[in-house]
């Protein structure tokens, strides 16, 4: 136990030199947790919003449905299987019918997806009640992005044209009954929400659906081959891939911060080798073995990280907690990033993140401290004693 005691004594005895390093290292430590927390928060916030607005506890897709290919929609509809119908009847699932259409806002032509939803459902966060209470022949609900892109607003009437189940074109005027604000782009851009029964009647697809979304907490029952269950891992894969690609930039910042802190430790250790050579020689003359001298100097460096974690916790905990509560206001063009994170980003600091960062900082600091200390092993006591005293 003598080495830890000596290392701590040396460290605290070095005064301002130690505390400068500790502050730099603690800053890197807190910054790493903050930046990684932003990324985790972005991931969590976007996933939560998508689950709430669109995915629930997963979706059953009609076998012909391909979300990346609108042309598949023509054949991607079918009757709701009995096992799922029971869930729908109990409010534990909701069917969505999707069809390809064309709209003519302000004389322009735009392709859209018509999505039929039960106005009284509560499985998804789509505000269907506006569809339920409207007297319009075809009440339509759109998102704020869609409204902005098309110039449509509440009360506007827009012509929509679609093909029914037999391939016959039909057109009618729909009334915009509500413009909803949502961070989830996939329920907004290029989408018009109509009452499910209305859309089924318009297309002749009575009692049919393209997707059936399960409510949160509902386990997916077995069904026939026509319907395939997509769990949240599949549904959120694109989001997670996108976060992963964004995390490269964050990783670079992570590495730069870590390198800066390590540079301070490495610099101190290298300086120690040259400035404290005589001290090392004295320690050896007093009976400390070379291995123990290496252990002492490595531990001295590594203890910087322990102090940095303590100091970082002291000012970082309230700072990061405040930041997690208040959030970070995002600029208006954040929508273009493709994330469903709204106008504020709330960092999320998991225990895993804190523990991993702590361990990483400690391991890297120890390695960085060991490398220059290893050079002592090659130093003869007589050579060390000839060095300058600190």
């Amino acid at each position, binding site marked *: 136990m003598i080495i830890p005691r000596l290392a701590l004594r040396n460290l605290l005895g070095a005064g301002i030199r130690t505390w400068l390093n500790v502050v730099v290292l603690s800053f890197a430590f807190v910054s790493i947790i903050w930046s990684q927390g932003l990324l985790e928060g972005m991931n969590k916030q976007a996933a939560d919003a998508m689950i709430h607005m669109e995915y629930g506890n997963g979706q059953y897709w009609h076998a012909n449905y391909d979300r990346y290919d609108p042309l598949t929609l023509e054949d991607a509809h079918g009757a709701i299987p009995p096992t799922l119908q029971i869930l729908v009847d109990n409010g534990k699932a909701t069917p969505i019918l999707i069809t390809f259409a064309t709209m003519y806002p302000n004389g322009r032509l735009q392709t859209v997806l018509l999505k039929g939803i039960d106005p009284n459902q509560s499985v998804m966060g789509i505000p269907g009640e506006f569809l339920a209470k409207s007297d319009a022949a075809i009440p339509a609900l759109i998102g704020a992005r869609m409204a902005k892109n098309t110039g449509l607003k509440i009360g506007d009437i827009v012509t929509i044209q679609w093909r029914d189940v037999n391939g016959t074109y039909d057109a009618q005027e729909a009334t915009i009954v509500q413009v909803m604000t949502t961070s989830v782009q996939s329920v907004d851009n290029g989408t018009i929400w109509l009452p499910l029964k209305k859309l089924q009647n318009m297309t002749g697809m009575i009692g049919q659906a393209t997707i059936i979304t399960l409510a949160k907490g509902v386990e997916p029952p077995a069904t026939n081959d026509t319907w395939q269950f997509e769990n949240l891992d599949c549904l959120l894969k694109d989001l997670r891939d996108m976060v992963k690609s964004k995390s490269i930039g964050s990783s670079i910042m992570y590495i730069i911060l870590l390198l800066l802190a390590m540079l301070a430790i490495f610099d101190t250790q290298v300086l120690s080798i040259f400035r404290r050579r005589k001290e090392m020689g*004295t320690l050896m003359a007093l*009976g400390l073995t070379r291995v123990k001298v290496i252990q002492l100097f490595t531990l001295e460096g590594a203890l910087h990280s322990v102090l940095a974690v303590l100091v970082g916790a002291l000012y970082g905990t309230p700072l990061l907690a405040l930041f997690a509560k208040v959030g970070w206001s995002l600029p208006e063009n954040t929508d273009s990033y493709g994330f469903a994170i709204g106008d504020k980003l709330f960092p999320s600091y998991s225990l895993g993140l804190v523990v991993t960062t702590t361990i990483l900082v400690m391991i890297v600091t120890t390695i960085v401290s060991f490398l220059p200390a290893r050079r002592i092993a090659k130093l003869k006591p007589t050579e060390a004693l000839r060095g300058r005293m600190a």
Partner: protein
Amino acid sequence: MKNDVIIETRGLFKRYPLGEHTIVALNDISLHFSKSEFAGLVGPSGSGKTTLLNIIGSLDSPSEGSATVLGNQIESLSSRKAAELRNHHIGFIFQTFNLLPVYSVFENVEFPLLLLGLSADERKKMVFEALEWVNLADRAKSKPAQLSGGQSQRVAIARAIVKRPAIILADEPTANLDAENSHHILKTMVTLNKELGTTFLFSTHDAKVVQYLRRKISLIDGHVASDELCQPA
């Protein structure tokens, strides 16, 4: 070897490479030192005094010949065994004091006892005893930077003597001290030598030290020019 001989060198050579040449620092040194001796290696700079002291102190090894210290063959000691020998049996006093700058006087003197694994109570008792010997008990909490040269060297003596080693090796201990402090330090060492029976071996070219020696070994160009007993002042 007589029973009370604790240091013996036989045909000791130490050579250093210097570019294409070789410097012979020690040239066929054969000496022995008994328990409780107060002896000095005297000679000009470069005569090999410090090199011989370093070999006896197991900080260095000879190029040829043998050095036996308390029954340990220095040339065949592993670095761990050498550290163990220094830790238990040898105290060092350096020209530049070599106190550990971030430690207090107490902690500096305590250091060798920490390595010996003594309890806190034992350490405290022995440290204050050593500080009493050198009249510095009242400066136990001071840092080396707050001490004069004479006081620093007295702390170094306390650190060397605190573990009651068999041998104390002092390399130019008065080189950085004025006359008054030098005499004070040397008198302290003479007292410790008499009271504790510790063997003192000096390397010096200071006349003030020489007058306290009971044995003077003159080294010139790495070999023993004379080895004589003296009558201390």
